[in-house]
């Protein structure tokens, strides 16, 4: 349970009111925004609200938000919380702590835990751990196949009908490579408006693969992970989704070719969505040159041309959203030779900064665009209740006070030791990134304030 001397009557938090003074909703003109009863209660003229203003509930806290930007609370469709099974790397508590500090109010917890989240029991356990921690909403993802084995469908309906209300199903870490099984999964989840999130990796083309196949891999003598192994599955599954008129989501798109195929699939009118990770928007495969496995990730870092295509795809909506693929790993799983290391990178506490650097600086997305790609679109894809119709609706009067307050200006140097995650495998260590989350509100209650958990 989180504690704070600042917030009294924690059980009554939703009744507690806040004024965000001179805040800029979606980067627009400053206003005073009143949060009360878990919703955005009013917009008032900028600077007009003080402690003695009329109409404020008793005990209202005034927060000077001059220069800060108000965004809807961020939603991460792709988080590894590692619990149950690898509590040495992350727990639901530590991972959601990282999420709140990164501006997230909902995370979708991936199914590749131990035991695998392939039954109603495991998804309910993860769901309850999320409620107990209280830092953000945790929506468990269910495995598509039993034990992520790719052989038999897991009890998808039981997970959908459980208290966790699972809507997203994924064998992430493994591709559902059997075309017939994938077709059945796509069809089956229609009964409860589910979506299959595919980890697109043709397994035979990536046996032993260590990094992007190309010029750098040839030099480093590391077995290549070819772009075609991702693109072939996206093409196949796009065709399948079109054939059976089902919803398909593609995890962590990493290549320029994938963006082209997605554009084509969407032009056909098929219900295909996709996510890109912050690291694939910023980092490239030449970082493998020192053989430091902190840069080992699956799918691997690609080339500068891929990065440019991913940014363009996210800007024009071909890629619907940003998802972190936050993948904590214990030190001994990264302090090894490259081939022995586990793939994956931390992401929750740096995602918004990376999106600012890659998309906002340079003008590819405005703040409404950031709100869409990091909050509204992932909420829609994941089937969260009542996401606002558009970005402006998400910060309008009446919307849930599930919000992120961002200071866009400061640049900070990422210090792995300062992260809330139990693991330290951030690829941004020592790198300067823009922006800092000043506060995160979940239904009117602050979960993070000034870099500290509330």
């Amino acid at each position, binding site marked *: 349970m989180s504690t704070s001397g600042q917030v009294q009557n924690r059980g009554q938090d939703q009744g507690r009111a806040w004024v965000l003074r001179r805040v800029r909703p979606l980067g627009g003109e400053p206003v005073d925004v009143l949060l009360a009863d878990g919703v955005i209660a009013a917009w008032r003229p900028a600077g007009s609200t003080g402690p003695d203003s009329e109409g404020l509930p008793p005990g209202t806290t005034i927060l000077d938000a001059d220069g800060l930007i108000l965004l809807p609370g961020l939603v991460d469709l792709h988080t590894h919380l590692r619990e149950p099974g690898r509590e040495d790397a992350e727990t639901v508590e530590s991972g959601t702590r990282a999420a709140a500090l990164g501006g997230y109010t909902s995370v979708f917890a991936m199914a590749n835990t131990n035991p695998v989240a392939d039954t109603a029991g495991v998804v309910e356990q993860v769901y309850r751990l999320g409620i107990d921690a209280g830092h953000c909403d945790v929506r468990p993802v269910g495995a598509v196949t039993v034990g992520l084995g790719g052989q038999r469908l897991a009890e998808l309906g039981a997970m959908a009908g459980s208290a966790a209300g699972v809507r997203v199903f994924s064998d992430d870490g493994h591709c559902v490579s059997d075309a017939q099984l994938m077709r059945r999964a796509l069809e089956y989840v229609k009964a409860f408006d589910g979506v299959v999130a595919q980890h697109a990796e043709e397994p035979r083309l990536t046996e032993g693969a260590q990094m992007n196949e190309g010029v750098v891999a040839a*030099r480093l*003598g590391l077995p290549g992970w070819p772009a075609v192994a991702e693109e072939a599955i996206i093409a196949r599954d796009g065709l399948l989704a079109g054939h059976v008129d089902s919803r398909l989501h593609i995890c962590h798109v990493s290549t320029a070719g994938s963006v082209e195929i997605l554009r084509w699939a969407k032009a056909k009118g098929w219900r295909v969505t996709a996510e890109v990770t912050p690291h694939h928007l910023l980092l490239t495969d030449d970082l493998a040159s020192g053989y430091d496995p902190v840069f080992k990730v699956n799918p691997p870092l690609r080339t500068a041309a891929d990065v440019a295509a991913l940014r363009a795809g996210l800007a024009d909506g071909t890629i619907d959203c940003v998802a972190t693929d936050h993948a904590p790993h214990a030190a001994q799983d990264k302090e*090894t030779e*490259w*081939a*022995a290391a586990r793939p994956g990178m931390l992401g929750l506490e740096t995602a918004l900064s990376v999106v600012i650097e890659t998309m906002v600086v340079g003008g590819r997305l405005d703040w409404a665009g950031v709100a869409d790609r990091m909050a509204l679109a992932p909420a829609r894809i994941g089937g969260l209740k009542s996401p606002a119709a558009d970005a402006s609706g998400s910060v309008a009067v009446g919307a849930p006070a599930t919000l992120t307050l961002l200071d866009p200006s400061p640049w900070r140097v990422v210090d792995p030791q300062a992260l809330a995650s139990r693991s330290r495998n951030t690829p941004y260590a020592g790198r300067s990134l823009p922006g800092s989350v000043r506060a995160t509100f979940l239904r009117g209650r602050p979960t993070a304030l000034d870099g500290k958990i509330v």
Partner: protein
Amino acid sequence: MKRHLLSTEDLGRDDALLVLDTAERMARVAEASVRKLPTLRGRTVVNLFFEDSTRTRTSFEVAAKRLSADVINFSARGSSVSKGESLKDTAQTLEAMGADAVVCRHPASGAPHRLASWVRGSVVNAGDGTHEHPTQALLDAFTMRRRLGRIEGLRVTIVGDVLHSRVARSNVWLLATLGASVTVVAPPTLLPLGVSSWPVEVSYNLDAVLPKSDVVMMLRVQRERMSAAFFPTEREYSRRYGLDVDRAANLPEHALVMHPGPMVRGMEIASQVADSARSTVVEQVANGVSVRMAVLYLLLGGSGEVV
């Protein structure tokens, strides 16, 4: 010299020539009546071999002993490494023992790079995965220079499993640095996709390249590549890319035939060719000791006159 020898890719021309020139002086030690120098007395060289390689390990061992260093052979088999000890723990153990140099052979590309970040001593890459084998390339260059008098301008053809070959990678970079022109010849399946960025010509036709070669370097082809469909059969590989007697006859008079060993006779190279006068296979082994002496001497800053 830098502190470590991890690859030839980052080895400058001056340093490469310094190694070759120093190796010449070391070679004279081998010809002397007392084949030992006191220069590394009191220094410890650890041979850290995670792969079996008797020839490379022995070569480094002889080199270190001729320089009077204490040599410790630390083989992964039968040690704590086979019980799951991590490379980092092994590194810390060596560090605690005060190793001045660690000669590392490892099946994972980049393992010596990791090791270099964890130990204070010098790290010599004795072959890492499918990445590099820098002392092999240096001894190959040394052999070419001794036989043909120069490296600059030589036309060197490297034939075989370039994709999986650390010898090929190290030779490509070193020979380019020293001014040779390199052609790699292999079935397209055994070339890396990124070979287009290398300073080499690429050919799929050995017969077309041989008459224009001053040196032809044959790489070992492992039979297990066949099962992964890199080529259909051993016989077809041998017919298209093996150096048999008829093919060798198309080489210029002065051309050398090299092989890093161990050879698969009858597969990539015919016995008669391997044992012919133009073959340098045995010399390469002898030169390996001189080159490795030079590398250890230069990295450890050996004191006193060499010869």
